[in-house]
């Protein structure tokens, strides 16, 4: 394609020598000449315009229709319509074409509308303006005209039009801040830093002089990696993701930036990431497929019977039929070839009975579910979270009814059960422990031991989000009077310096906001602020801290610490270090991390402090706190320089960069001096214990899958009501003494083997014990706790069955120390292995795989990370809303969809069977009983609306009762409304009804029907029968309604009325069989007597069945209805809401605490590996982070904010 013709702007080549030197591009990399369109010309880079539409005007019909006909029902009806156009058909094609085209019309209109919206969106984006460098000035150019190699300027709050190489920014030090919300939903700012050599190319004059070649990888979809080099001024400079600005992100807090376009249009990383998400189908819908298959089988069955009959019937003796004469369709009645008659009649009957297959069923269900999700779930006040201003969001409407059948919930802990709101609670500095706060867990334990703890908050107690610490010895500078103020100082400095937090907003202690990847980090920095070490500014090379009380009480002093290196956190290192230079030139390394890794790296000596700190850590841990150890080390300049050389080398290496960095970091993180430890409280989310209890009463089993340590996880499990003291606990852990012994020997094969055997042994004994418990009548509930290492072996195919058996028998299961992959494996184990319906709920990137693996994925929204939400099917703001989502919406949706499906089955079967009975009376000729139009409008008009109304409004018991009686939910788990017997009952009664409807109308039809002695003909009888069918089928709907709103009345009455209006007009307008038929039959009293009798007689059976069923075998919901029969439905829902969880949050919490374990466990509760952590650092510093296939693909493609950037 001619690139110049596509671009409306011409940029003259500023390179004169480049033309001849163009080499063919190597397939695995691309070379881009900056600021030089002509040289880039030979390489076919795509333009920057994007198109996310599925169709254009020409492809819409063929492609759209093709997609529609991939549905079996549609294809089947197309086939039938074609068949109906042939002479063998008893019906005219309109019978099938009308419903088919209506269904297609609705679906295609929806598609077209959506595509049109996408196109508009694309147009808006493609026509956005961006400043491009042309002839030393910035010219405003539409995005779509941008080309690879162009130099662009992006102003504050502007979006990057393509993937850019960052050259310069108005900020000092060549940094800029970007928001990646469109990419991963995270709203915190990230830093990007340009190469120092390019900082100066900021103005248009200067930038036009910029000439360089970029050699980089080919476009790919990895958001966090980039390898390439900038060849510039005869130097080769390595490029990292830190210099790459991705399309879809926006510039914040920066005047403007200048960059070179490297990937455009569909080659940008964000576009490469957009892919279609495989949609989940609900279990019920899959069962529905089976039902449709059964209907097809029935269809062929009755066609077969009819066809055999016709083979026998055909005979020349019926001279008035002139079967002996040829002519159109004569083969069908040729008595000399009965097999041919059989075959042709088979097809005839296939077209005749085609309404048996409910063509509008899928469309109706889709419509119902769409409204359920967009109108009911998304708008439910009970699931709106005021604090975060987040309503619930159904991201798919496919799975509403699946919510009503969930049996297993897999929940993440941090951010899901807990708030992910970390509060600095306690600390130990040197040999002292500080913090007078008492955790709820401690209080419960104390109370159980008969002690009452009075909490005496001092006046100085300061409480802020993230800080819940009180100790007079440290606050307000009082630490200067402590026995060892110097170590306190180090402690506070470590908190203030050793982190990767970004300050935002006004630089005053009250107004500043901290952007942190992990709330733990933010809590620590806030703590430093409260202690008088206020971190207020970060530049890429320095951290500014306003220190008070250091030299003298009350004195303020701004100090800047030069940051030399950041050795960042990752899950293998479990620690983080910062090397800084004091203003006086001293070099210090501050380190914080998990107790185990810090202790390994401590210098010898100071055993007292180590011992004491370890004790404190265990104390903190058993109180349910998350701990970190702090340490520091003074460096000599010489040693540092030697080390730094290695570090720079490692950092610029192109392969295995992070591994090398880890290795280099090991070299300097040695001989540390322990300062102390911090303890952070991870608060439970509001209403979690009550919600878990409710869900458990609903027959749902909850598994908590967490990355936390076993002790922390057990604590939270107790606190959240998942495990109680009455339960028998099985703990399977790879942390036994025997295992440690083997581990010390260090042979990996032996370790693996040993652990495997050990896990097997533990599993086996637990399983035996569990089974004996189940057999005994004690009814004791069981709980299982298993750690990640054991899980790894337990998930092995040979042990999997045992694990599954054990897990399924337990009421609560806690898996600790599990990786994201294991979370998904466990979910899949239950989903596939036990064939149960599963739901996963989580909030972070580490939950994405689990969310996608489960039948239903629920993301916690309104928090920082959006990755889980992007991958989820439903998003709610709080764990406790799960009760509403499942017990109210899920249960209702399940019941409604079941009703819609079974009713569809019933009405089509009843209708078609009347036709089938008629076939016997017509010599199996396949004569239609009803008029073409009547038959074709049966499904789409006369019986369409009421069932949708039921699908939307039917309500067995109110929302508050659904919450009050969680046991009702078990009806969904047992699938009582769509099991075989239910379907069979419906089918049985539809056979019964069709027999009544047909015979009661047709048997007395011979003989005079009015006082003038006139008789009725075929079409008179069929119209009467049809009227009876319409009335019966619509009235039958009332019998399945639990509540009748005026919409029910309008829909049912309207449908019957529509039939009469239609036939009144139709029989006058159209000359033919039905001409004036309705007026003829309505002139006879016989018609009215029949119309009264037949529906009654037909519904009589159902009525008796319902009466007996309700009397002797009532469903649970029916009992509840009866209990609350006389209660008026209150419209004040907030009042009713409290029926479900009538505990206030503090009450609920203390109730939860009473369930805590009695034994004090010896653990230190290290928990710093918060979900977003790794990716945060990766994006922050451009370090390679393991590509997570499960999150990248999805998150970028999903979010389409109003501002309109679409990926």
């Amino acid at each position, binding site marked *: 394609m001619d690139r110049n013709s596509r671009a409306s702007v011409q940029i003259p080549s500023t390179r004169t020598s480049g033309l001849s030197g163009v080499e063919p591009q190597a397939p695995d990399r691309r070379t881009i000449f900056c600021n030089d369109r002509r040289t880039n010309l030979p390489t076919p880079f795509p333009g920057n315009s994007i198109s996310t539409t599925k169709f254009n005007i020409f492809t819409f019909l063929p492609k759209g229709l093709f997609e529609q006909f991939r549905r079996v029902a549609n294809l089947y009806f197309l086939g039938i319509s074609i068949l109906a156009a042939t002479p063998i058909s008893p019906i005219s094609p309109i019978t099938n074409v009308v419903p088919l085209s209506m269904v297609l019309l609705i679906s295609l209109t929806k598609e077209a509308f959506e595509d049109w919206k996408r196109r508009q969106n694309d147009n808006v984006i493609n026509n956005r303006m961006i400043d491009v460098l042309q002839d030393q000035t910035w010219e405003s150019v539409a995005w779509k005209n941008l080309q690879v190699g162009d130099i662009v300027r992006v102003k504050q709050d502007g979006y990057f039009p393509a993937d850019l190489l960052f050259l310069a920014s108005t900020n000092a030090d060549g940094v800029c801040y970007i928001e990646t919300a469109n990419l991963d939903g995270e*709203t*915190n700012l990230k830093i990007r830093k340009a190469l120092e050599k390019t900082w100066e190319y900021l103005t248009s004059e200067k930038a036009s002089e910029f000439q360089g070649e970029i050699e980089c990888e080919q476009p790919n979809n990895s958001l966090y990696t980039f390898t390439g080099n900038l060849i510039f001024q005869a130097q080769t400079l390595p490029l990292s993701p830190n210099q790459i600005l991705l399309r879809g992100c926006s510039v914040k807090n920066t005047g403007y930036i200048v960059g070179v376009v490297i990937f455009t249009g569909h080659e940008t990383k964000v576009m490469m990431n957009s892919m279609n998400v495989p949609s989940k189908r609900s279990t019920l819908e899959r069962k529905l497929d089976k039902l449709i298959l059964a209907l097809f089988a029935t269809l062929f069955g009755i066609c077969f019977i009819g066809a055999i009959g016709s083979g026998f019937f055909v005979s020349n*003796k019926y001279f008035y*039929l*002139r*079967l002996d004469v040829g*002519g159109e369709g004569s083969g069908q009645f040729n008595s000399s070839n009965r097999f041919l008659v059989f075959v042709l009649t088979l097809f005839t009957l296939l077209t005749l009975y085609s309404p048996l297959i409910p063509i509008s069923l899928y469309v109706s269900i889709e419509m119902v579910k769409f409204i359920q999700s967009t*109108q009911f779930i998304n*708008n*439910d*006040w009970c699931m*709106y979270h005021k604090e*975060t*201003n987040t*309503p619930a969001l159904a991201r798919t409407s496919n799975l509403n009814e699946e919510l009503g059948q969930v049996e297993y919930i897999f929940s993440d802990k941090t951010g899901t059960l807990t708030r*992910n709101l970390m509060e600095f609670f306690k600390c130990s500095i040197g040999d002292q422990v500080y913090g007078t706060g008492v955790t709820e867990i401690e209080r419960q334990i104390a109370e159980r031991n008969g002690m009452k703890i009075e909490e005496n908050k001092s006046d100085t107690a300061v409480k802020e989000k*993230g800080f819940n610490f009180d100790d007079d010895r440290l606050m307000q500078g009082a630490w200067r009077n402590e026995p060892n103020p110097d170590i306190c100082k180090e402690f506070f400095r470590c908190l203030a310096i050793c982190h990767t937090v970004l300050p935002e907003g006004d630089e005053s202690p009250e107004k500043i*906001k901290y952007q942190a990847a992990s709330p733990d980090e933010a809590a620590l920095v806030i703590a430093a602020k409260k202690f008088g070490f206020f971190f207020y500014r970060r530049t890429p090379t320095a951290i500014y801290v306003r220190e008070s009380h250091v030299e003298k009480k009350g004195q303020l002093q701004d100090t800047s610490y030069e940051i030399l290196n950041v050795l960042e956190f990752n899950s293998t290192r479990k620690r983080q270090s910062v090397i800084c230079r004091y203003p006086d030139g001293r070099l210090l390394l501050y380190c914080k991390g998990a107790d185990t890794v810090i202790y390994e790296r401590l210098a010898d000596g100071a055993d007292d402090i180590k011992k004491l700190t370890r004790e404190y850590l265990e104390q903190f841990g058993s109180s349910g706190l998350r701990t970190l150890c702090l340490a520091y080390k003074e460096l000599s300049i010489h040693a540092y320089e030697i080390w730094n050389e290695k570090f720079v080398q490692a950092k610029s290496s192109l392969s295995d960069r992070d591994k090398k960095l880890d290795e280099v970091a090991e070299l300097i993180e040695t001989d540390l001096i322990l300062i102390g430890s911090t303890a952070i409280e991870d608060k439970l989310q509001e209403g979690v214990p009550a919600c878990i209890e409710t869900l458990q*009463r609903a*027959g749902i089993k909850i598994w908590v899958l967490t990355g936390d340590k076993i002790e922390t996880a057990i604590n939270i499990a107790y606190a959240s009501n998942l495990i109680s003291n009455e339960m028998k606990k099985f703990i399977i852990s790879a942390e036994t003494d025997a295992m440690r012994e083997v581990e010390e020997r260090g042979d990996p094969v032996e370790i693996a083997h040993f652990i495997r055997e050990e896990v097997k042994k533990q599993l086996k004994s637990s399983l035996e014990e569990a089974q004996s418990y189940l057999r005994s009548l004690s*009814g004791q509930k069981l709980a299982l706790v298993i750690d990640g290492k054991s899980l790894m072996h337990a998930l092995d195919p040979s042990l999997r069955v045992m694990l599954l058996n054990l897990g399924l028998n337990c009421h609560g299961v806690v898996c600790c120390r599990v990786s994201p992959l294991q979370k998904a494996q466990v979910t899949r184990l239950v989903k596939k292995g036990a064939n149960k319906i599963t739901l996963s709920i989580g909030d972070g990137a580490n939950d994405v795989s689990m969310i996608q693996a489960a039948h239903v994925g629920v993301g916690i929204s309104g928090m920082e990370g959006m990755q889980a939400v992007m991958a989820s099917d439903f998003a709610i703001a709080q764990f406790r809303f799960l009760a509403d989502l499942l017990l109210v919406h899920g249960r*209702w949706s399940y019941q409604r969809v079941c009703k819609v499906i079974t009713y569809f089955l019933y009405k089509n079967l009843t209708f078609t069977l009347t036709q089938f009975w008629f076939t016997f*009376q*017509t*010599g199996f*000729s*396949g004569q239609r009983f009803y008029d073409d139009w009547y038959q074709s409008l049966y499904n789409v008009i006369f019986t369409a609306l009421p069932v949708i109304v039921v699908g939307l409004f039917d*309500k067995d018991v109110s929302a508050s009762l659904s919450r009050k*009686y969680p046991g009702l939910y078990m*009806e969904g788990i047992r699938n009582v409304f769509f099991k075989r017997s239910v379907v069979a009952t419906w089918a049985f009664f539809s056979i019964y009804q069709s027999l009544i409807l047909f015979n*009661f109308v*047709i*048997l007395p*039809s*011979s*003989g*005079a029907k009015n006082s003038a*002695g*006139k008789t009725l*003909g*075929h079409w008179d009888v069929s119209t009467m029968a049809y009227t009876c069918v319409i009335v019966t089928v619509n009235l039958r709907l009332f019998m399945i309604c639990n*509540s009748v*709103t005026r919409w029910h009345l309008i829909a049912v009455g309207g449908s019957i009325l529509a039939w009469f209006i239609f036939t009144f007009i139709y029989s006058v307008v159209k*000359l033919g069989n039905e001409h*004036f038929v309705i*007026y*003829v039959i309505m002139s006879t*009293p*016989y018609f009215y*007597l029949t119309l009264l*009798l037949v529906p009654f007689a037909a519904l*009589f059976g159902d009525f008796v069945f*319902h009466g007996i069923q*309700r*009397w002797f075998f009532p469903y649970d919901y029916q*009992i509840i209805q*009866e*209990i609350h029969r006389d209660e008026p*439905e209150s419209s004040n*829902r907030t009042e009713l809401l409290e029926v479900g969880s009538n505990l206030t949050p503090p009450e609920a919490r203390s109730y939860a605490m009473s369930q805590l374990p009695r034994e004090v466990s010896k653990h230190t509760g290290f928990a710093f590996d918060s979900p977003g952590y790794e990716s945060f650092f990766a994006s922050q510093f451009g370090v390679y982070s393991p590509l997570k296939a499960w999150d990248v693909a999805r998150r970028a493609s999903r979010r389409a904010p109003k501002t309109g950037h679409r990926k």
Partner: protein
Amino acid sequence: MASSGSGSAGSADAATARKHTKRPKYSKFTQQELPACKPILTPRAVISSFLIVSVFFIPIGVACLLASNDVVEIIDRYDSDCIPENFKNNKVGYIQSSIDKTCNRTLNVTKHMKSPIYVYYELDNFYQNHRRYVKSRNDDQLRDPKKGDSTEFCKPEDLSGGRAIVPCGLIAWSLFNDTYSFSRENNMLAVNKKGISWKSDREHKFGKDVFPKNFQNSSLIGGARLNESIPLSEQEDLIVWMRTAALPTFRKLYGRIEVDLNAGDQIHVTLKNYYNTYSFNGKKMLVLSTTTWLGGKNNFLGIAYLSVGGLCFFLAMAFTIIYFIKPRQLGDPSYLSWNRSPGGQ
């Protein structure tokens, strides 16, 4: 602060924050609180609805039966009796021969029959509802003289010698052609054949200026011939015949006798047994019947009403007895599944 990212946007300005609240708008629809009545099928409701149905249905059933019993009906099957002895084994041969088909029958009136008395012929095993038969007509042609040539769907009786047949098609072709004349004590009883078809058929489906053409001209004669000088709208036998029956056994109106017949009267019927039902072993019957408001004899409706009503009454009684013997307390929590089996399973 951990969540300041979203918080800062929201709390920047309290006023705008309130405006930007994402709290869904309240409506009874979205909160699923539409006013509704909740019918519950309690035993009492079941019993009373049964009672109500029986209270309504039994009288209706009685009324229907009474009406049906008022009808006096004389049925005479003559197809085999009208075959001479020597043709008993060759009925088809007889009917296709040109022998005189006159047949005399005597009907005994057992009960007073009030005029008008309707005369019907009843055919059996005659598939007027056969697919090939039903569609073999052309309504345009029957109504509109300009469309006399449209013979679509009429095969094989569409053309005769290359010219369109009016009325075309198998239905018209196979028009019933037995004729009946009645006499009582040597007095002829006139049979009025006017107004035996539905008015809408006469006025809307069969044209006043459409005349039969080329009818029954081909070698094979199916049934009656039509007088080509009478328009179709007045050919009432044809109109009645062409309102095809729903079942293979059907009755069609032949005419009216407009005098009362007394009990004990003997009616002599002279009939021309032309129509061939012998090929397919069909019965032919002559029916004389009076009518009531409900029409002819129709016990089915009355019996059905009485059965449904009676069954409802019986069930109402049975349920009442059960209600007293083994009552189920409404809303008894012990029926709840999680109470029935301990452990919530």
